[in-house]
């Protein structure tokens, strides 16, 4: 471990704290993936690891390599931006397809599709 020994103590402590916090939050999110009962509840659990876990671990890496100055820290910024932008899109599509499948099966747990009311043209006497 050559490069980590060069890290001063005032930078090592935040890096350690951010790493441990981020991985603990990811573990909590994945445990929620097991413990929650329904699919629509489970859909919320992995967003913990994809938002807070990614931000905290990338922040730890950015602090470490900004202090060490031996790597360009552009990758972490790209990873955070990409994951933050793409996670809602993925989960929204997955929730839509799950809702579609549940409606096809005629499940009673999901809300029914609202039918838009057509304006009755003959009653308006146009």
């Amino acid at each position, binding site marked *: *471990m050559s*490069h*980590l*020994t060069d*890290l*001063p*103590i005032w930078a*090592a402590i935040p*890096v*350690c704290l951010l*790493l*441990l916090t*981020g*991985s*603990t939050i*990811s*573990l909590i*999110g*994945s*445990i929620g*993936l*097991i413990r929650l009962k329904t*699919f629509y509840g*489970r*859909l919320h*659990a*992995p967003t913990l*690891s*994809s938002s807070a*876990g*990614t931000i905290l*671990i*990338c922040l*730890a*890496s950015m602090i*470490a*390599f900004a202090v*060490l100055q*031996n*790597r*360009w820290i552009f*990758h*972490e910024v*790209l*990873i955070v931006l*990409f*994951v933050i932008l*793409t996670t809602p*899109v*993925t*989960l929204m*599509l*997955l929730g*839509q*397809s*799950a809702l*579609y*499948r549940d409606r096809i099966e005629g499940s009673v747990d999901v809300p029914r599709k609202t039918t838009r009311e057509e304006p009755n043209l003959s009653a308006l006497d146009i």
Partner: protein
Amino acid sequence: MNELFIIWSILASQILLGLAMGCALFRIVRGPRAQDRILGLDALYINAMLLLLTFGIRTANSIYFETALIIAVLGFVSSIAFAKFLMRGEVIE
């Protein structure tokens, strides 16, 4: 003292992320329906990306960070494709 501290905390966070990947793998194997398995796959690749970031901090190798970026991009595309497949029955219409 200092380097021992940071090495042990990196190791602990790797173990925690490995446990998180195990939970996601449990949901893939056990999931009652197809959308549960896709959700487990989504959580699995996010946790694998975070694990690669901790490996990158440990070795200061730039390849790990590029690999994490590629995993993020490909995982997003694969999850979108799976969700479209569940909705329509085919990926490219």
